[in-house]
Each structure stands twice: as C-alpha cells, then as structure tokens.
C-alpha cells in the first residue's frame, strides 16, 4: 500500500506543482555606473559632433576678414559696449547668387545621391537576397566578398577605378580587343564614373541592413502570396518589400547621406562640369578662403538632410504608435 500511495502522491504533486516563473526583467534602479556607461558616448558626440557644428554655425554668421582666423568675430567689445553681430548675408547669397552656382550644385548633388541610392538598392537587393538565402557556410564566404573591399583604403580603390576606366584602361582595352568599339570611350570625368565610384563604395552599407531585414522575413508569406495566385514580380512587391521596409530605409539613408556630401569620388572620377556641393565647400574654404560662406553652405546642406529625415521619423513614429495603440 505504502509504495503505491507514495507513487500516487508524486503523481498528484507533479500535477499541481506550480511552475516557478523567474521574472525575466527585474525592476532596475539606475546607478552611477549606468550613467557612466551612457556618459562616454555622449561626451564623444558632444566633443566631436555638437561642438564643431556650433563652431561652424558661429563662423557662418560672420564675414571674411584678412586675419587669423579669417573671419570677423561674433562678439566684440568696443568702448565698454558688447556687440553681437549676426551676419546673415552668407545664407542669402547662397540663394541669390547671380550664376545660381550653389543652388545648381545642391541640385546636382541631390540628383547624384538619389540615383546612386537607387542603383545601390537595385544591385544590393539581389545581393542581400543571395546572402540571406544561402547556406551558412556559403553565406560566410559571400559576406567576406561584400565586406572585404572596404578593408582596403577608400582612396586606393578609387584610384584603381581610375586606371580601369581611363582611355587606355582595362575596360577600353577589352572592348577594343573584342571589336565592340573602334576608339576608346571617355569614361573618366563623366557622371557615369561618379556613379560607378559611389555605388561601388557604398554598396556594403546598402547590403548589410537589407540582409538583416531579409533574415527576419517570414517566408511563408511569399508562399501564401504565390498560393493565392500572385505572380513572382508582384509577390516581391506585395510581400518582400513591405516586410523589408525598415532595411530599405536604413540602407538608403546610409548611402544617400554620405553620397550627398561626397567629395573624393566626384573629384577624382567626375568631370569639370559636374560641380557637386563637396567641391564648392572645398573651393570656398581653401581657394577663396571664405570660411563664413563655406560654413553657411555646410549648414544649409545639413538642413537639407536633417529636415526631411526628422519629418520622416516623425511620420514613422506616429504610424508605430498607431500600431501599438491597437495592441
């Protein structure tokens, strides 16, 4: 009787035993260590982003002077009176320049950045797809192929493109040898070369966010779309694109923002007629030594970037809140 009873008790106990749940996240009181941890990056950003930004902003509100540094001081003391003079003519001259040089180069830069982003997206999506859908062993190799070029110096790689694309470079040699063309094509000093350079250099920044978005994709949705009669191309736009939206946005920003202010690539590969905003900045700073105007150009470029991004984030957040409210 005893053994049977105890066996039964175990049975009962097991049935009624409450599963102990360990709290996953205990209430956490912030200590000075936590603050110290956050402090380091904040100090870094303060010192190397916000402070230089404020200095540039300050310079943009002055006028040039033949002095060291070559601009008028913002605050002056004369006969016991403190004067703060804010010059806004740098900003107005950007927009009222008779040749429209600044506006034109802004537009050109926006165009180059936008098309480069689009090309990166078109080339990067299949690449990211190949990465995400390959076997882990193959994936590592593909991953290295995407990342490895960025281990070499950026400038060296641009010079490599110069030798590939020059009049007696590899591409022209091969095309002539094959009899496709009779005389070499002018590739350097064209927009084409600029696009090649930018797309080549920034492709990894597009591929990686796309890859991580594609890894999270629910593949059964693709099958569901197929099953419901959706053709392949439409399936891509109706299932994959909405699911990888965050990756597309992140990748596009990572390409678009640096491409907008890109200086080295258009300088080395681009033509004389395609003057981008990077070139203007350089000329104003170093050739004309007009630091205030150059600063104003830089600040304007920042605003062109920041305002749409902030608007975009605001809309995104509102949408996210709407979704969360439903939960």
């Amino acid at each position: 009787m005893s053994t049977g009873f105890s066996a039964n008790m175990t049975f009962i106990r097991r049935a009624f035993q409450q599963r102990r749940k360990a709290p996953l996240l205990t209430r956490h009181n912030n200590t000075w260590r936590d603050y110290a941890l956050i402090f380091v990056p904040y100090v870094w950003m303060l010192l190397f982003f916000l402070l230089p930004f404020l200095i540039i902003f300050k310079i943009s509100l002055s006028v040039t002077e033949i002095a060291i540094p070559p601009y008028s001081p913002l605050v002056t003391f004369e006969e016991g009176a403190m004067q703060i003079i804010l010059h806004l003519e740098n900003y107005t001259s950007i927009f009222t320049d008779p040749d429209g040089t600044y506006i034109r180069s802004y537009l050109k830069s926006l165009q180059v950045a936008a098309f480069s982003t689009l090309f990166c997206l078109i080339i990067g999506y299949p690449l990211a797809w190949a990465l995400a859908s390959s076997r882990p062993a193959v994936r590592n190799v593909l991953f290295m192929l995407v990342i490895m070029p960025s281990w070499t110096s950026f400038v060296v790689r641009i010079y490599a493109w110069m030798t590939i694309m020059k009049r007696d470079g590899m591409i022209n040699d091969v095309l002539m040898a094959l009899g496709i063309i009779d005389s070499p094509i002018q590739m350097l000093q064209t927009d084409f070369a600029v696009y090649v350079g930018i797309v080549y250099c920034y492709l990894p920044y597009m591929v990686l966010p796309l890859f991580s978005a594609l890894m999270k994709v629910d593949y059964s949705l693709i099958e569901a779309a197929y099953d419901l009669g959706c053709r392949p191309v439409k399936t891509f736009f109706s299932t994959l694109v909405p699911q990888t939206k965050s990756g597309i946005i992140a990748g596009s920003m990572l390409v678009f923002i640096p491409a907008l202010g890109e200086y080295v690539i258009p300088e080395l590969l681009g033509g004389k007629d395609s003057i981008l905003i990077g070139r203007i900045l350089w000329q104003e700073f170093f050739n004309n030594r007009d630091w205030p105007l150059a600063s104003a150009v830089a600040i304007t470029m920042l605003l062109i970037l920041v305002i749409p991004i902030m608007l975009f984030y605001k809309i995104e957040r509102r949408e996210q809140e709407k979704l969360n409210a439903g939960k």
Partner: protein
Amino acid sequence: MESEAPVDTKTASAAAAQPAAKENTAGQNNQPVKQMHLPGQLPGQKPTPEQQNRKPILEIKHVTKQFETFTAVNDVDLTLYQGEIFALLGSSGCGKSTLLRMLAGFETPTSGSILLDGRELIGVPPYKRPVNMMFQSYALFPYMTVKQNIAFGLKQSKLPKAQIEERVDKMLRLVHMEEYVDRKPFQLSGGQRQRVALARSLAKEPRVLLLDEPMGALDKKLREQMRLELVDIINSVGVTCLMVTHDQEEAMTMADRIAIMDKGEFLQIGGPREIYENPNCRFCAEFIGSVNIFDCHLITSNATQSLIACSDFKNPIELTHDIDLADGMPLTIALRPEKIYISHLPPQEQTNWCEGVVENIAYLGDISIYYVRLTDGRIVSATLPNVDRFKEGLPTWDDHVYLSWDPESCIALTF
C-alpha cells in the same frame, strides 16, 4: 456527402462535448447523399467514397520526392474524392508536409504524377493552381487588414471590384468575422486569425483546400472547440480538403478518411474507426491511441477459432476467426486499454485473461488508467470510465486483480 458523418465517426467524448455543434451540422445538411448502411460495414462506420460512387478529384500516382540522399515521399498513391476531408497523419519528418507542399506547388516531385480533375499539375506554378492552402502559421499579411487579406487572392484573379466586395463579405459571414474587417492580424486572437486564414484560402473557391496543421498554432482548449467548427465551415462550402496533422485526435475528429504515414509511405488508409479498431500493422496500432502489445505465437488456428500463446501470461488468447499463419509462428496481439475488464474475481473461462497487481492508477477525471503488473513483471494498462462520482469497491493500489477481454477485442498483427 452526408454532413452528419464527421460527428458520427467522432470518439464518444468529442461528440458529447459538442452537442450543439452536432445539431448545427445536421441542420446545415443540404447534400443529397444520405448515410446508408451497406453490407459488410461496421456499425457507425461511414461508407467508403467508392461505395458512394463519388467522383475522384485528385489523383496522386507513384509520387516520389527525394532530397539529395533522403527520400521524403516514397512512391505514394492516393485518390481524393469530391467533398471529402482527408487527413495525412504522421509524426514529424514522415513526409506528410512534403506531400502537401507538392500539391500546392512549392516542391516538385522527383517522379510520379499529380492529376487534378484529370489534368497534370506537375509543372504548373503555385500561382496558377486551383488549389489553396491554409498555412500552419496562417501566413496572414501583417500589414493588411482582415478585409485586404481575404481580398488578396481575388484581386490577383482580376475580378471586378463589386464581385470581390461581395465575395469577401460572404467569406466574412461564413467565418463570423464581420466585425473585424478593418483589424490588422496582430489585433486578433489566435482563433480569429485562423478564421481569417480559412476565409482567405476559401475565397478563391479552390478545387482542393490544403490545411497544414490547421490547429498547430492554437492552445489545447481552443483547438478542440475549433475542430468541429472548421469541419462545419468546410462542409457547408463543400470543398474537398486535404489536411496534414500529427495530432491523431484532430485527424479522427475532422477527417472522413485518414492515411497513416511513416518514412514517406502510407501504412494504412481508412476511416477513423477502421484505423483505430482494425490497424493493419504494429506501427498503426501504436500510433493511434494507446495499446498493449504482446509478443505471442500461434498455437492452432481454424475457420472459427484461433488459440494463441503469450509469453507474458499463462492462459492462452482465443480469437473467433482464423489467422493465415503456420502453427508456432510468432505474431503480435494488440489490445486497447479500454477493452480490458478489471475485476477482483477470477473469470470462469479458460482463455483471454491474465492476473496481476495494481501498480499505479492515473486518475484523469473522466477515466482512470490502471497500470497492472503481471506476474512476470510486464505492465499492462487498462482504463475504467469513472461513471459514478464515489463508487465503492474499485480496485486500488496493490490489489490483486484479474484482467479479461472479449475475443473480438484482440487485434492479431502479423507484421
């Protein structure tokens, strides 16, 4: 097809738990074919589709699927008849999902052919097959509302807008989701998501509906509730349905016919009752329900009686039919726990009983499972329904008991 059928073939407990559903099903009966008792049929068993002269709709012929070195589906033949619910039942990795995916068009068979209404399906891409699937995870588009999800398939076939609207409304009424049209999937409960998924896969009026583990994403209570409801909806539409499941209760509750699959092959195809009461092999007997398996050998067999010796107890087992086996050959006897009687007194007969000591009792509420240790140490399980709330005189721990059974209860398995 007769729509009482799914209820008729249910296990007693499932039918008892759903009396309302039973009436509901009977009420919706608008199909002309009534259940008839044909000769040679077990009582309560449905006529086979062949007996009802139903039209075959889907024919799978010698289909094999090989993945590199592994054969997932091995030379399988199956015919599905108009309006039936067919379940592929097997443990994970048995090839049932691969077979389903081949029907949907996501996998291509290595060899064989799949005919739908007599037309070859192999080579037809998934988006051109008149077959729709309800996915295990439902695969609802998270960025679309309930309405957009259901309308998705209809939009692909470029129906006029008014017609899409009408069909979506009809589907919403069918699954009772009218109030939730503008919700997104994450705002729905598991059961509601399942209804939307079902509505979406039925919206295009597929020739065959494929269900991949239809209850897999639901919790146990909801699962039992949804089974008959799903059958109701499917029957009211009249669509032929092929489902894949690893849950035998689900297969038995929902399906008209079941195929037990193992290692890419069908072991047995039949109605739920046939498969439970008349398994054709040891795997099937053990796979469905619980069973006591005894290794035996045949003593003698003639047309009306077979005597079998079991190594686990001294009395022979007697069957009332002949066994096509030479005397002395080994065979397996399968005995379901609910078919065993437990008593304190020794039976009068010479055959079909054994004795032991109650080792353990599992009280499950509706039934109790008695684990009885035979004299040679072997444990046999037997169930007793708990009919009375406080019955005296039931066997208890360490009691010496006698287990007996009817000759018809034993299943002789020769492989």
